[in-house]
């Protein structure tokens, strides 16, 4: 075999390859995000890290929303490969009322603040619990859900009180309220942290930890369909609210979302959303008023 590559040719090939790479990037793989079909090419959009205004969103025709893609029934990918869930129904409605299409970015719990500060998305709608710490980094709109922490554990070694967790290993997902609650208030509990909910559940199933703590809605749904596991603690820590978040200082978009939540409250939108997405999972065990917040009013 003989190689006869002339360096000059190599240089030309190099630049050609670079140009090709760039143009290839423009027509990237169609599965880059589940809803990519609804958006035009967006590689290397050289917009600023400053959030987009309401007008800019309308003009682009696309509302960018960060959602979970592995947290049923709030945000997940259904059998057809489409985004679905309680948060998604709300996102679709926001986009509809704004007269634009929606483009989802799938996020991990820990990435929810960063995608806003670096302007990857306009709104984070990923089961985002309002905390003082997060308020310093992002602006929350009015709440549309409320939640407190729950602890799920194997039935034969059920944890019914936080004091039982002393010296034991608790599984948590990184960047969740459970992480900060246990770090601050329960230093005696050994924490085992995972990036993904799926991994955290597997850890619990494999017995790598004694219990798993995250939002009570989440563990209730999970325990309902996993035999041998029970939510021993259904209410822990403060009752928190869940709200859409926008980049800090993006007042215009924030006010628009707040008006929207007021408006939707009048038509009982979130109760309908609950019936459609959450009721099939929780059944009659949970009253919708324990979870749903209408018009941003928490009683």
């Amino acid at each position, binding site marked *: 075999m003989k*190689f*006869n*590559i*002339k*360096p000059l040719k*190599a*240089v030309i090939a*190099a*630049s050609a*390859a*670079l140009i*090709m*790479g760039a143009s*290839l*990037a423009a027509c*990237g*793989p*169609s*599965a*880059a*995000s*589940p809803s990519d079909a609804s958006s035009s090419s*967006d*590689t*290397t*959009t*050289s*917009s*600023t*890290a*400053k959030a987009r205004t309401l007008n800019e969103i309308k003009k682009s025709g696309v509302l960018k929303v960060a959602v979970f*893609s*592995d*947290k*049923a029934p709030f945000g*997940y*990918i*259904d*059998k*057809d*490969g489409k985004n679905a869930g309680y948060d998604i129904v709300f996102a679709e409605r926001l986009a509809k009322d704004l007269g634009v299409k929606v483009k989802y*970015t*799938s*996020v*991990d719990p820990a*990435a929810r603040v960063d*995608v806003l*500060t*670096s*302007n*990857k998305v306009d709104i984070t709608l990923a089961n985002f619990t309002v905390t003082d710490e997060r308020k310093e980094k992002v602006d929350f709109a009015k709440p549309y859900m409320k939640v407190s922490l729950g602890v799920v554990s194997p039935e034969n070694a059920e944890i019914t009180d936080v004091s039982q967790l002393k010296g034991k290993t608790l599984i948590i997902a990184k960047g969740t309220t459970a992480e900060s609650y246990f770090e601050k208030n329960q230093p005696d509990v050994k924490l085992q942290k995972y990036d*993904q*909910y*799926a*991994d955290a*559940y*597997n850890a619990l199933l494999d017995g790598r930890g004694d219990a798993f703590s995250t939002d009570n809605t989440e563990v209730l*749904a999970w325990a*309902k*369909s996993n035999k041998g596991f029970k939510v021993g603690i259904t209410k822990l820590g403060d009752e928190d609210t869940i709200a859409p978040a926008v980049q800090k200082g993006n007042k215009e978009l924030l006010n628009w979302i707040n008006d929207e939540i007021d408006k939707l409250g009048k038509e009982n939108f979130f109760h309908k959303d609950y019936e459609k997405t959450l009721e099939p999972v929780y059944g009659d065990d949970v009253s919708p008023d324990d979870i749903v917040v209408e018009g941003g009013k928490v009683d």
Partner: protein
Amino acid sequence: MQGAEILLLPGVMPRLLQGLWVTVWIAAVSVIVSVPVGLLVGWLMTLKNPVVRVLMRIYLDFIRIMPQLALLFLAYYGFARWFDWNLDATGACVLVFILWGGAELGDLVRGALQSIPEIQAESAYVLGLTGWQSFVHVILPQALRRLLPASVNLATRIVKTTSLAVLLGVVEVIKVGQQIIDANRFQYPDGTLWIYGVIFFMYFIVCWPLSIVARRLEKRWAND
């Protein structure tokens, strides 16, 4: 065999394959662009110019010392915040893998070029070839042979490292797997192992032919 039925659900395999396509696409674009970048970097590294050498040394060491994950976060979140340069997740991955592949390949190219004995260039000079001619017709062909097996291995490493793209929110094969596992966690709690098993097999199918190519080349040219 409990839980294996999850693989037969409609849409599961097509979606995993779609995810695999994203993985392969990122890896392929990165590897293809890395080659010219690597050749250029490798050539620059052999130059006597001290400024170029120091710059290349800094570039290589920076890329080597930084974990790929840190580089990915820098490219995705950092660039947007510091330079208002908002790459999408796939773009950030491709950029980082090109810089990484280019640096590693550059070092391989440098090693290969320098491993060719000086006497080869001298003999070429005696035969009346110019410096450029001797580089193209004598040094480079031999260097490429020594270079190829190692660079194929580098390509395999790039394929596997694309799994880090998950952490930027790229929906590639691993993320698709996690989404399927999660959406079916109530009906198929034991599906996890099967999905990850299929993913393992998919990576194997992509990387195995590359390993075979590398081994063949190594054997064929061992005694040249």
